[in-house]
């Protein structure tokens, strides 16, 4: 499986997997052997991590984002594939480069446009999903870095795009 980036309290941890042993996870290169011992309730689970017992309470807001608590200490959690994380950073840096005004959305990697859930002229909020690209057998959603209106769309569903291909322009709210 592809690398994951686990973001805890704003800090990134790289997670890699051992394909021959599904219990093994490498975090920043350190090996952890994991076993789920018991699910006490829907959200509360006891794991054994390198034989050490850890009870956690998972409270997700979305499928890959939320809170995870252990010993009463709550961590803000976000899990992304490496690709997706890259996408997010890319969009973020683009947005920063544009000075927070209009946004030009380019493809951060080669892939297949599988869905465009917005139309030209549509008003969107910062964080709304604007395009989905399949790459490395994973779907990656690109979210809008700003609130505004879709100005132009330079691709369509089913089209293969190159890295840095122009996908969309979004006009910021004035």
């Amino acid at each position, binding site marked *: *499986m592809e690398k994951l980036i686990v973001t805890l309290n704003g800090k990134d*941890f790289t997670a890699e997997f051992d394909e021959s042993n599904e219990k093994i996870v490498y975090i920043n290169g350190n090996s952890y052997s*994991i076993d*789920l011992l018991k699910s006490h309730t829907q959200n509360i689970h006891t794991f054994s991590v390198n034989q050490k017992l850890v009870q956690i309470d998972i409270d997700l807001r979305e499928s890959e984002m939320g809170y995870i608590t252990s010993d*009463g*200490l709550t961590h803000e959690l976000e899990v992304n594939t490496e690709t997706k994380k890259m996408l997010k950073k890319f969009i973020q840096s683009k947005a920063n480069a544009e000075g927070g005004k209009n946004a030009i959305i380019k493809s951060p990697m080669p892939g297949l446009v599988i869905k465009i859930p917005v139309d030209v002229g549509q008003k969107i909020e910062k964080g709304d999903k604007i395009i989905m690209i399949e790459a490395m057998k994973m779907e990656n959603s690109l979210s809008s870095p700003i609130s505004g209106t879709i100005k132009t769309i330079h691709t369509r569903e089913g089209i293969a795009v190159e890295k840095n291909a122009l996908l969309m322009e979004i006009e910021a709210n004035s």
Partner: protein
Amino acid sequence: MFSRILIANRGEIAVRVIRAAKELDVETVAIFHEVDKGMPFVHYADYAYQLHSDTPKNAYLDMNQIIEIAIKSGAEAIHPGYGFLSERSEFAQAIEDAGLAYIGPSASAIDSMGSKTKARELMSSAGVPIVPGTKKAITDFVELFSIAKEIGYPVLLKASAGGGGKGMRKVLSEDDLKSSFESAQREAAKAFGDDSVYIEKYIVNPKHIEIQVIADKHGNYAYLGERDCSIQRRHQKLIEEAPSNILDEITRQKMGEVAVNAAKACGYYNAGTVEFVMDRDKNSYFLEMNTRLQVEHPVTEMVTGIDLVKEQLRVASGEELSFRQEDVKLTGHAIECRIVAEDPFNSFMPDIGTINYMREPGGKGIRIDSGIETGCEITMHFDSMLAKLIVWGKDRADALNIMESALKNYKIKGIKTIIPFLVTIINHPQFQNGWFDTGFIDNVYEFRVLEQMKEAQEEVIAAISAYSFRKIKQNGGSSTGIPSQQQAQSNNWKKTRSYKGR
């Protein structure tokens, strides 16, 4: 002994009183507002009656309704617990007037101690040491100057008519006295229309030491040692212990006798607590007397073996205390931690929600006085204290070890509590060696330690998150044949739970 009593309170203290009564074969009547219908204290009683009121809080303050229910239910006495009506002399009086017994001191004793000025005067004349100073209104700087010199700096200027900190000035040295006096006068005049002030010695970060006393109506008085309640946050006690590691046997006895004298001075019977502040030279000064059971009474029970609530019932029913002063022996060391629903990572904001999982610690030396159980809802209407964890060890070091372990095994899910914060205090070197006072949390404790605890977990939490995330993907996207246990887990992971107050 009574055959049935009513408990005019809720939560853990209602449970506490019900337990003692049941163990004396006394039946118990709980009263509750609609919002408390599902709370353990209601179900734990023998009988329960609903209160009707505009707000949940007012229900427990409605003297007339409570006394009516007591009569209707056949209760012969009323226990006020702490908070709510527990220090209202009118309540004690109304209960007696209705021909029932009040499980506490007389209305007049509550009155004497209710007013701080009255209490100070009464205590002073009974020979109880009070904070040096003068109650006399001062308007003349020369007079003030000489009194300040006499009691020694730092001093505190307070508006005679005052309250709420208005017209109050800390004065650290003689140089600042004049300007502080003048500004205090101006503020006092503006706030209260009276520019007179009085002066008291300012005790810097004292220890909070209190003495438990109890007396019956036959003239038997006893003191049950001290409690050290110096670990406070914004004047809310968080951790209490008995005995205090800074008191020797002679000081303990002296303070005990002073406390008994204080009780005698107001014709006191039933349980009460005389609170002192103690400076670094171990001088203790009367602060106030609480004319009721205290939240922290269990630590005294643990080191003396005496059940204070049972004694309260004995006294109120006219019996003598079941022991005498000479029977009181202190054994071992007890510590109490208050389990409060507040978020230490977010300015101690009270948290509300449903407790969806709970596991209490157990075993040797562990006592839990709790008002909650799994499935119960914590609302915004009442105090944020959910339960108390009390431990007993053969000495302070043993008790600290037991407390640390017990706190770590006290699992409450669905609501934030201060448990992690308490763990870091219990583990703090300066708390462990006994060098702490009421300034501990403000001046000594570093919140960074809490953050470090969190950081120490991160890599393992990341590993669990990654593992679980992969399981979801595998279950959702392919057919790798994950066993059902893991299936269940990954579904849970996907499931979103809504939190109130976020």
